[in-house]
């Protein structure tokens, strides 16, 4: 079940969130048309780290692929399909000509980071989630335009009532209950 409180302004919402956190209420989530000044519970996104790691993996993959292509390790691969390349004299340059391998590796690194960032964002937020119980409330339609909301999700009935009480205590002008 969800308890939904609508506020007029971001400041009001921020005060309510602070009070709720002081009361130790769990499952608090804010909804706002722009990114809130302070996130609930000081959430620090770990996606940048994921992107950094993906970027490094991508760069390493690019460089290893190029080396694999000209040195032909695993030549007699079991499956035959994965046979690497073989040494070829190109313009008198050495086979593993690392200066010319850098651009390819750099670009694959950036590509992997970008893709990891986007997919990570979708996965962490469990998007695409077209339907969420919270959509049932009509007022919630304002959340993406100029409405500021707090929603408290609880599983059991008693918690639901305690959340309702805490929200009323925090002075939310309109409160809605959504019971799926």
């Amino acid at each position, binding site marked *: 079940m969800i308890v939904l409180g609508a506020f007029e302004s971001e400041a009001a919402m921020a005060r309510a969130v602070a009070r709720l956190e002081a009361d130790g209420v769990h499952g608090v989530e804010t909804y706002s048309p722009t990114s809130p000044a302070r996130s609930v519970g000081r959430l620090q996104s770990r996606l940048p780290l994921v992107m950094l790691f993906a970027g490094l993996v991508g760069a390493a993959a690019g460089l290893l692929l190029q080396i694999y292509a000209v040195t032909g390790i695993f030549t007699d691969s079991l499956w035959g399909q994965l046979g690497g390349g073989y040494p*070829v*004299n*190109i*313009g*008198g*340059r*050495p086979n593993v*000509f690392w200066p*010319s391998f850098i651009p390819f590796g750099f670009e694959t690194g950036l590509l992997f980071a970008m893709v990891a960032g986007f997919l990570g964002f979708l996965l962490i937020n469990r998007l695409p989630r077209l339907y969420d119980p919270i959509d049932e409330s009509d007022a919630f339609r304002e959340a993406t335009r100029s409405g500021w909301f707090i929603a408290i999700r609880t599983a059991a009935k008693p918690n639901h009532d305690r959340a309702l009480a805490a929200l009323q205590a925090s002075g939310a002008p309109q409160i809605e209950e959504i019971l799926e």
Partner: protein
Amino acid sequence: MTKTPAPRQVSGKQWRSLLEDPDTVARQYPVLAEMIGHPASRRRVLQVMAASIALGGLAGCDNGEADGKLIPAVIAAPGIVPGRANAYATANVVGGDAMGITVAHQMGRPLKVDGNPLHPASLGGSDAFAQAMILDFYDPDRAAGIITQGQPSDWPSLQRVMADERERLVRSRGVGLRVLTGSVVSPTTGRTIDALAAAYPGMRWHQWEAASRDTVSNGTALAYGRRLDVVPHVERASVLLGLDSDLISGAPGHVRHARDFAAHRNPTRGPMSRVYAAERAPTLLGTAADHRFIIGGAEMPALVAWLAAAVLRGEQPGSAPSWFAPLVADLKAARGGAFIHAGPDLPVEAQALVLAMNEALGGRGRTFDVIEPVAYRAVDFGADLRALTDDMAAGRVETLLVLDTNPVFSAPGFTEALARVRLSVASGPSLDETGDAATWYVPGAHAFEAWSDARAYDGTATIMQPQAMPLFDGMSAVGVLSMLRPGFEGTPQDSLAAVRASWTSLARGDAWVRALADGVVPNSASRPAQVAIRPEAGRSVIPSVVSGEALVTVALVTRPDPGLFDGRFANNPWLQELPRPLTKVVWDNPLLLAPGLAHRLGLRQGEEVEVTVGAASARLPVWIAPGQAEDVAVALYGYGRRVVGAVGAGTGVDVYPLRYAAGPATLRRTGRVLKVATTDHHDVLDTGDTSDIVRHATLADFMRDPALLQGGVGSPLLYRNPPSGPVAWGMSIDLNSCIGCNACVVACTAENNVPVVGKTAVLHQREMHWLRIDRYFEGPAEKPEAYFQPMLCMHCEEAPCEVVCPFGATVHDQEGLNVMVYNRCGGTRFCSNNCPYKVRRFNYGPYAAEEARPVESRNPDVTVRSRGVMEKCTFCVQKIAATRIAHDISGVAEEAVTACQAACPTQAFSFGNLNEPDSEVVRRKHSPLNYVLLPEQNTRPRVTYEGRIRNLNAEIPA
């Protein structure tokens, strides 16, 4: 940008083309509208609509034809091993000049012509005409069949006409019968015609050659009393003077003369000869000469007279030019080793004077010999034909048989006379104007399709064995003649029997087979004639040529086209697209004018003029030829043929009428501008201040400082990974020996299936020759020095093209070859951009697929490239692979001969294994003249050049 120590300034700026102002470039270049895509013919559009867009991409590399067929013989032909080539000797006869050749066969198909090393007129070398024989043989337009009055006919109806013709001739004992042939150097054909003459006493035999050397043979008649042939020994000439001379470009035996001429042109390989040339228009000998003097049209007779006076009588003419006295002194000083050669454009009297001078200079028996004519019956072709046309016009000719000559196109007044002949039968390898105009046309055998024989310039005889069954059931000359013989039963005489009959001396033992294999009948060269020069030869007076008074009249010189000769090769795509040695023009015969004359007349490159000589006139574009006399215009005949195959149709302008009209020529602008295709692109090409592209020096400077021409190899490299294979292929090109005759260009095109692209594509600058002969001028436009430089892939060890190919389609193999893998090429073309020598060519369109030649004429050992693929010289990798495999199987020494090296008459190319210390190529690479082209590009090329040395006469002022 590290810069290697620039080689010292050699001499002035080099430039290549004379198109000054930019708007000519825009006008000369095809207008935008006309370049709307490739003008797809209707057939091609239908073919394309049927084909779906290539989904080949999905299948990756293809899995081999699903429907490939294997067709073995029914009974295996002896000696034919599929995949291995075997060679047969024969000869190539062009206008009465025979040269021994060997033809390489694969699976029974003749595919490649090369010189016959045992034949004195070739010594292994060849010329463009011999190399291009293949496409004349496979020419699809030869399939005309028997034709009468323009309608196809058949053998029986021809037999009926011939049968009653024979009765008429037997009754009238041959009155009214005329046989007209080209210049016959074949004893068998000559004997067959004599046998016919014996059967019909009333018969007359006439001969006609358009590019005839009547003046030269009449000159010998005037000098020695009867027609003789002069056989120069150029290797013994230490001082050589050419007067409008075609000694190394067109004279009989010019391939052998080129070899002997080049033997003394490289100072590092023996004493250097000195060559003078006095000419009205540039020739190959003039370009290769040490001193080249430009003589006006009217001054040439005067010059010859002065020379005769100075050499024969020691008189010193007053008004002679400054270089005249040193020249005569040099000739006299080299007594016994001096030789003067006069080209066919000089009048008869001048020829006689030159013969007298050569005798006076003690050359007889040393620098030249005089022999009985090698032609079966030496005649004055002009007079011989005039006699025939007079008979025909007067109606005295009932039956005319024309064999292997095209008088309707190339002879004066023949067409009108032919109309009055009751029955005319023409025979030749392909349907031409004469075949079309005659009442009957009988397809003739190509030189590859019948037995014959031929005697070369020095008399050496060659038995010409057929290379294949007649492709279009052509009949040999002997067969056509036998149709008229009284005892003819229905089957034409077998040419083999005729040849064996005339060579009874070879009947014993294996002499016949030996003569066929060697391509030379042993000691059949003519003995020198025991005849003395007549005293009045030295006193003959040259009639003065009426010089053009008005500014606009010029002396018209007509010469055979270097590619089409007298017009017989008009349907040969290789010769049509062969860049002419000096003008680099293709598919056209513009009128050549000197720069000064063109400037005075306000004519620009490609503008059309109307040339009128007497009654005849022709409209043709103008082309500016630096180094030509001011008052001379050169017209090249052989173009403008009316009845010719698809290739030759509509190319060039027929200038034969001008050749036979008398009097000076007048030029009149018509205001139109025509597009003349050339491989020497339209731009003012100035190589900037240094001229290290073609390095040259005088012999004196070279003697003083032998390292004069060397220059650097490039700055040191960060990565040096030279190929490490057992063999290292390399090439050295000697610029002293290269005379720019283009034999190598046609040989390369023939060996490697290089496609011909046609005039429109050449105008788009998309020609495909893998090997091009770059021609650079140096000095003033009126009197420049010209240099030739063969340009092919350098197979650089630090190849800039390999680094930039994203598909990895061009890589270096460990034997030093820059390998171009056609099936991997995607067509980004970055490799061509990155090649400093620009030797890579791109198939912008499906050129090979749209070429007018049968698939059987292609070399099976070389991949035929599709559209969108880059191609370049591969050092004939198929020949290298063959020698590699032979070495690996049976330990034979690994040596390969590239197509250009084999074809070159002067052995300018030397190719071989650099790891072999005593090979010819290593010796040439260690010669002091050796230098790297564009060293500052740091590519370490495997092809290097030997700089050009000029042996200047000190007394002659520069």
